[in-house]
């Protein structure tokens, strides 16, 4: 299903994807953007920079925690990781997504 262009749903989709991306470990903003690009070209098609206000928003909501650290190349960057609340949120979102797709599949399969 193509993600709706409605900004709320875009928000919601973006948030869920970011949480998913960070599920496997802490990353800095650019790395997140690269992974997102691989997952879904449309999510950040508008502008890459709009990832950052989203990250700040999620951090404010307690889903992410951030901190400055050094990358492999020795540069200073801000890394983000999932918090417990964030993980719980991811699980909840995943569960409801699963329910939705199962329901749709059921409908489609008759």
């Amino acid at each position: 299903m193509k993600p709706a262009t409605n900004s709320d749903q875009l928000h919601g989709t973006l948030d869920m994807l970011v949480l998913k991306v960070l599920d496997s470990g802490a990353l800095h903003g650019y790395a997140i953007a690269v992974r997102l690009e691989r997952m879904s070209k449309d999510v950040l098609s508008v502008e890459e920079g709009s990832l950052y206000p989203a990250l700040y928003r999620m951090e404010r909501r307690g889903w992410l925690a951030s901190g400055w650290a050094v990358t492999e190349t020795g540069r200073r960057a801000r890394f983000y990781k999932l918090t417990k609340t964030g993980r719980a949120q991811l699980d909840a979102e995943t569960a409801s997504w699963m329910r939705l797709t199962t329901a749709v599949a059921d409908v489609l399969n008759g």
Partner: protein
Amino acid sequence: MHALRVTIARVRALFRRNVIADEIREELQFHVEMRAAELARGGIDAGDAHREALRRFGNPAVIQDRGYDVRGGGVLETIVLDVKYGVRQLRRQPSFSVVAILTLALGLGVSTALFAVIDAALLRPLPYPHPEQLVTLLVEEPRANGRPGHYAPSMLDIRAWRSLTVVAQAGTGRVTGFAPLIVDAGTPQRLTVAEASEGFLETYGIAPVLGRGIDLDDTREGAPAVALLGHAFWQRQFGGDPNVLGRTLRVQNEPVTIVGVLPRGFYTDTAVWQARQFSTQWLGRRGSGAPVIARLRPGVTLAQASGALDAATAPGAAGTARVVIASMYDEETEGFGATIRTLALAVGLILLIACVNVAGLTLARGATREVELAIRASIGADRGRLVRQLLTESVLLALAGAGAGVAVAYASLDSLVGLIPLSLPANSPVTINATVLAFALALTVVTALVSGLVPAFKLSRAPKTIAPMLTVGGRGGAPLSRRAGQWLIAVEVTLALVLMSGSGLILRSFARLVSVDLGFDADHVLTLQVEPLDRSAALRRDYYVSLADALRRLPEVAAVGAIDSSALRGGGPWGFPTADTGVDIPGFQRTVLPGYFEAMGVRPLAGRLLEEADRAAGEAVLVSATTSRKFFDGNAIGHTLRYGTKTVRHWRIVGIVPDLRHGGPYWNGDPEMYVLPDPAAPDTSAVTLAMVMRLRDGASLPGERLTQIAETLGPRVLVERATPASAFLSEQVARPRHRMLLLSLLGAFGLLLTLVGIFSTTAYAVARRTREIGVRVALGARPAQVVGAMVRDAVWPVMAGLAAGLAGTYYATRVIARFLFQTTPHDPGTLVTVVAVLGLAAFLAAWLPARRAASVDPLIALRAE
């Protein structure tokens, strides 16, 4: 919970604004560089890669802002920025800011002070536990003539009620009036003494801080006399000594033992609380005059209590009795309404004038900020933002004004309260406490809105184009249009007229009050009030006679007499002697010593005055003109009177004297009789006399000398007062005087504020129309014509304001009608004067700045714009 965390984060962000901005910038920059590096690895030239990375990224500045919106201080930050900006703007316009702050300080300070009084008098007059449970009780029983009379309940009533379930506690007590009090050390002082039954203090919920309270046993006739000390007296006289229990002091020459000390703040003026002793015959007697209070159990309503009390009340001599119950709060606050309403109206008017003034000043000053505001509007600030900025400045001014006003009110609270003509509740002093401050804050916000909202909206209106404003001399629409300025003046003049009418009427009333002819010349009469501590009537009489002789021998003294000291305070004993005509003569019976009328400078209307020779028999009396006219058809001389039942006195009228207004200007024509001290002198007739002296022309006699003579002559006396008689009269008009001073002060404030408002409005108009004036002058107008035009612009609104003000006065002054003496609320003379004063002053306030228009040099005016 989440909201709280966010708020805390935002507050912390306030202090890290630069750090956060830098972090965001660094983070975004990192992203762009990484993207550029990746693109470059793909083979694109470095410069192009960077540009492409930026293109994909989006506008960094916009992203930065959006990011900051989330991480930064949010609304709080905009408020902080508004405040900082506002402070800067206000500092750039010091004269405006100072005038506005002082204006608001006046209005807010006065309002806060009044609210402090309202708080003490109406909101918390009873600082006891659960004051809603406290009630006052009276017994209503039918009199012999069948009509109901109200009497103070008896002790038997109180003790019966105390056993009811609805009543938690009850008791009686009262202040007995002044009595000399000697402490161990032997210095007599006149202090307030109260007496109370058992249960009285407990009803209030007051527990002694030392010792015990009054018990049932203390009130039995013949029990040892005990008393409690008031806290202030204990500190003052005994230095707070904890070993004061068991010591004795004398009240009215009788010894009492101290058994306890009361807590701080309870009737601070009362020095001693004695246990009242009831003889068996007094226990059942109703009508002793002492107030009875009770505390109801929680949850009991007045109706429920009333029923239970009625059932438990023994019938009176003439029929069944019932109980009149009232909440103590109602009793305490009765009578405050009118005075407080008047003051609130006056204070409200002042605050309103202040707000209107500041609004006008703000609009006028806003003209200099047109360019700045227009630019801000054109680069994207929406109207709401500008309004918020301007309102912030109004709030800052109001807060500064409130700070200054409340500080002044705090410092001068005692004198201000002294001016208020009310007896405030004894136990809740007027202070600026948390409630008052909260009120001040709320009022400040309201003031800021009232004085700032309209100017904020007018000033934030975005002009259609700003280009004309940016050229030299270009102007946008003037925010304070001619019409607005005229409305401002009209409204202020209206308000000021109402306020000043009130002041004027009170002033007129007071002037009439103090110019009432008292019948004697109070300024050259000295009084010496002495109280011998001995209660024996014979000793006292002899003392007074020898004191009069001693004073008569002084070279400075022309005449000496004496009169019952209560007469000088406007009161006195009342009696009903029977005349030989068979008629009862109700009236004041004033005990005098011969020489009184000579000392007062009064000659008899008929007959003669009392002489030394009359003292032996004590039969000669004088009557006032009113008495003679009312009861003897004007021919009182020769008639005899009989007075008393157990010991009968016989009197013969030997002279008629003019009416003397012993009661001051309020005296209303009561009959008076002047009698000599009873030569048989039963002790029940002990009176306190005040020596009255007339000095020879040019002589003077200091009070200390009089005191010295009085003290040397008698063994133990208390000299209460040695002053001119006018001091007594001052006291009688003290309350009206205070009212007059207070309202005049408020009226003067209102006038001052209005004049400032008119002045600045006109000055602003002149400045704004300088170019137009220059053109007129260049075209041949004479300076006088130009000034005339400016003044005319102000005159019409002033007239309109005066007219509207008169209409307002018609309604408003009814509020103070009850305080006026021989003056109607629409007294034409006063109103005409006030209108003239205000009109003239307003005209001057407009004319002074308008004169500057005449000195406008047309060349400079036309060029400099």
